[in-house]
């Protein structure tokens, strides 16, 4: 309940300041437009369009998801948070906020993608949906803990994608594979190994994040 209250505070703050939503919306629009312009009238392969989807998602996440902790640090309110809640509550609240933001972001990107790219055709929707949900969760968990790590650094903007890339790489590679399977119409049973990797990634990142956060949060 305390974590949910923190999420509500962040959500109301976001609605008023639009710190992350504006950055995300602009980034999504610009990136998809650039891809559309660069492709022109050419028809790209189905697998390439699936790959580009996750490239857009990765870089969009890098543009807005650090907000959770960076905005608190920039406004000087980190101390206030430290004084009112336990570290686990703070991480949970920020995680809920990022999970919702990632899902909203990914739904918008995937919807725009399916409208604008003819070659983006999914044969097995259930498999894509499963990969999409587990992948979004993984991106949200990793982005939240990395945001906490970089929030105290002086060059936050540069550090965030640099630190995120090696951590998100196994997740993105698995998601690329699963998107390809979903486009080829492969069944969920046949994609079990890749799905198990996604579940393991989410569980490991979540556990590691809660264990690490105490040390990151306290100076």
């Amino acid at each position, binding site marked *: 309940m305390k974590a949910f*209250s923190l999420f509500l*505070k962040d959500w109301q703050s976001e609605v008023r300041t639009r710190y992350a939503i504006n950055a995300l919306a602009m980034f999504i629009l610009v990136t998809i437009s650039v891809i559309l312009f660069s492709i022109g009238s050419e028809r790209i392969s189905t697998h390439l369009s699936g790959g580009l989807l996750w490239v857009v998602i990765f870089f969009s996440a890098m543009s807005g998801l650090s907000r959770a902790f960076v905005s608190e640090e920039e*406004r000087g309110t980190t101390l206030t948070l430290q*004084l009112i809640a336990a570290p686990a509550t703070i991480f949970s609240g920020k995680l809920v906020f990022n999970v919702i933001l990632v899902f909203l972001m990914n739904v918008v990107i995937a919807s725009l993608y399916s409208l604008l790219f003819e070659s983006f055709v999914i044969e097995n929707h259930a498999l894509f949906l499963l990969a999409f949900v587990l992948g979004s969760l993984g991106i949200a968990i990793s982005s939240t803990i990395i945001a906490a790590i970089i929030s105290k650094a002086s060059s936050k903007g540069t550090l965030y994608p640099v630190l995120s890339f090696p951590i998100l790489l196994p997740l993105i590679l698995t998601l690329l594979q699963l998107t390809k399977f979903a486009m080829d119409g492969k069944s969920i049973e046949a994609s079990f190994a890749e799905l198990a990797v996604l579940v393991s990634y989410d569980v490991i990142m979540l556990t590691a994040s809660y264990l690490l956060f105490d040390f990151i949060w306290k100076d």
Partner: protein
Amino acid sequence: MIDYKLKLDKLTKTFGRRLIFDNIEYEFHSGNVYGISGPNGSGKSTLVKIIAGLISPTQGKVIHESEGKVVVEEKLHNHVGFISPYLVLYDEFSAWENLKLISDIRGISFKDEKIAALLENFNLYGRRNDMLKTYSSGMKQRIKFIFALQHEPQLLILDEPTSNLDDEGKEKFYNIIENEGKKNLVLIASNEKADLALCSEKINLNDYKPEQGKK
């Protein structure tokens, strides 16, 4: 009165190679107002941050006890009220919204009458629905007092509490300290003589520094 005890056990803090203070051993008990003094850069803010559990000491430990039971670090925030010039509340919310959100995150009930009385006491009730970004620095300092008191903490830590306050604000502050000092443990870190005059005991951080060149 809840019996609250704070023990500093051989507390040392260094930043890199710079020693801030060395081997502080002290016990604080509820029902008293203690002062922490020392020149600028002597480590007053560092010491109060360590006591509040915001930063870790280099050596030694801080033990908080409420009614004879050690307070675990995860629960410490509910026992401590903290005011400092570097504490910032949320500018995009009004005073009322800030206090309500903070109560919810703390997991304590928000009592409208109590908060209204506190706001009235600090002459902020009329501006309770205004965004904090429209407040003056003195008004922001006053709202921090309500932030520190709203959860009825047993340990009140005040770092330069009268900075930005006008004479009326200071008068309110002295009245609050007088009342809080009777039932709770109050620590004041300040250089203001008037602030330190409220304290029954004082620690001078200069006494916890090694001689020049020793370390």
